[in-house]
């Protein structure tokens, strides 16, 4: 679906390049996560992919066709969910969607009322957006990005600033889009979001890609192959995963008291990120 080769970009007047030789592929129907701290180049990459930024070096192909050769039709095939909700505040949710929907072929557009119902915004249909909560505005963003039924959808920090309930809803909607066969490109610095929904993730730091892999493989590769066992009496011990069922020490330990919990010692995606890139995603105590 997307093929990027040696993508390099520098903002006009900037001394340093924002993107340095990025190379990656995205398959059709995949959720691909672009992870990195603020200023790493995630949004810049997205902006290039949805043709807002021009003047890049390297090769970018979408659907087998060079990005620069795509004309107006490209924008009918893509949807973009921006990081910050951006709507006409003086217009109602419905008026906003009708206005932007007007630029797409009618037969591709999904029914506004049905979408509002699906996203639990039914009562807000005819309310001005200035009266929406943040969560409602984000959902409206989401609806606008998918209303014209695009094949390729970009989401920039889709769960940023949302409470856990709304963030969960958004993640479920993204997974539903994947079930429908959509290809989804997500940029985020939220590791749990990426871990939950992405098929593959790419770590980007200072404009360079450090790794591209499935989250499960990364966690497995960088985690310890051990289980940590805790008993009711508070005693704790760790055992190698290999041949665990035949490990006499492990079996004897279990007999000592009632079991409280057993955890695998898999690394979190954030730990993997720090290990691979040597960078943190957000300052200590940040909301990650």
């Amino acid at each position: 679906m997307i093929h990027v080769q040696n993508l390099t970009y520098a903002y006009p007047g900037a001394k340093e390049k924002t993107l340095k030789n990025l190379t990656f592929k995205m398959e059709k129907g995949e959720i691909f996560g672009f992870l990195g701290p603020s200023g790493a180049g995630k949004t810049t990459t997205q902006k290039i992919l949805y043709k807002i930024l021009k003047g890049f070096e390297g090769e970018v192909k979408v659907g087998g066709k060079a990005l620069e050769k795509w004309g107006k039709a490209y924008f009918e095939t893509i949807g973009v969910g921006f990081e910050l909700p951006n709507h006409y505040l003086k217009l109602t949710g419905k008026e906003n969607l009708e206005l932007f929907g007007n630029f797409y072929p009618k037969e591709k557009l999904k029914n506004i009322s049905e979408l509002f119902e699906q996203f639990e915004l039914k009562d807000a249909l005819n309310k001005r957006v200035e009266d929406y909560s943040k969560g409602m505005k984000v959902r409206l963003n989401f609806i606008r990005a998918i209303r014209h039924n695009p094949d390729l959808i970009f989401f920039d920090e889709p769960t940023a600033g949302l409470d856990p309930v709304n963030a969960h809803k958004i993640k479920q909607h993204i997974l539903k889009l994947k079930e429908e066969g959509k290809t989804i490109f997500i940029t985020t610095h939220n590791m749990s979001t990426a871990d939950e929904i992405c098929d593959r993730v790419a770590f980007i730091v200072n404009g360079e890609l450090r790794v591209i892999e499935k989250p499960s493989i990364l966690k497995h590769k960088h985690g310890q192959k051990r289980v940590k066992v805790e008993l009711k009496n508070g005693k704790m011990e760790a055992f190698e995963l290999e041949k665990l069922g035949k490990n006499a020490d492990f079996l004897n330990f279990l007999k000592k008291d009632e079991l409280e919990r057993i955890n695998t010692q898999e690394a979190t995606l954030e730990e993997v990120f720090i290990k691979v890139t040597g960078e943190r995603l957000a300052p200590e105590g940040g909301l990650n």
Partner: protein
Amino acid sequence: MNKPLKTTLNDFKLIFRTASLRVFLFLPLAILLVINWFLPYLIGRYPVVIDYVIFVLMVSTTETAVMFMFIYAMVLIDEKETGVAKVYGILPLKQITFILQRFTLPFLIATSFTFLVLMVQPFFDFSAGPALALSALAGLHSPLYGLAVTISSKNKMVGLVYMKIYNLFIIIPLVSFFLSKAIQPFFGIIPSYWIFVGMENMHLGEPILWPMVIGFIYSLFLIFILARIFVKRHFV
């Protein structure tokens, strides 16, 4: 519904739902009232004013155009502030079409109102043809300064400041009529100068072709340059 019409309707909804912009829609009417009732009253009381009526008309024509520029510039700056401009950047819409859609109506309204002012003012008997050409040139100031204000401003407060600055800038060429003829052409760098020269010629019964031709070419050239900058900056 067709796209330009829908966009225009949307713009009007935004303007009518924003109290501070709604007021400006009625200012050209206020200008019309001043020209038709207040100015004749003033001349009745202070006859010396009659010598300056042509200058009042010059300012009125440009100000009429500028009012619509102000309204549209504020709508566009608001789009920038709220990030809505970015949405237009990813629509199946050519950016030049966006500019045409957003500025054709202000141009037409500005031209119509200026034409109305010129035709109903009670002081001079202008022919419709030259008055329409002059009005269209004044109308071009709406997209011209609208683009300039939008490009220069990151938010509405800055937009208001630039609006004031450009408003002063527009009337600077009036000074040229009080200076020596040799200096006058230097004011041609300010596009409104060509409206003023055209109006003076019309008032004196002289041909207005050249000031109009130069004014149109120069204004369109500036609009072209500004539109290019606008396209680069507005949607990012």
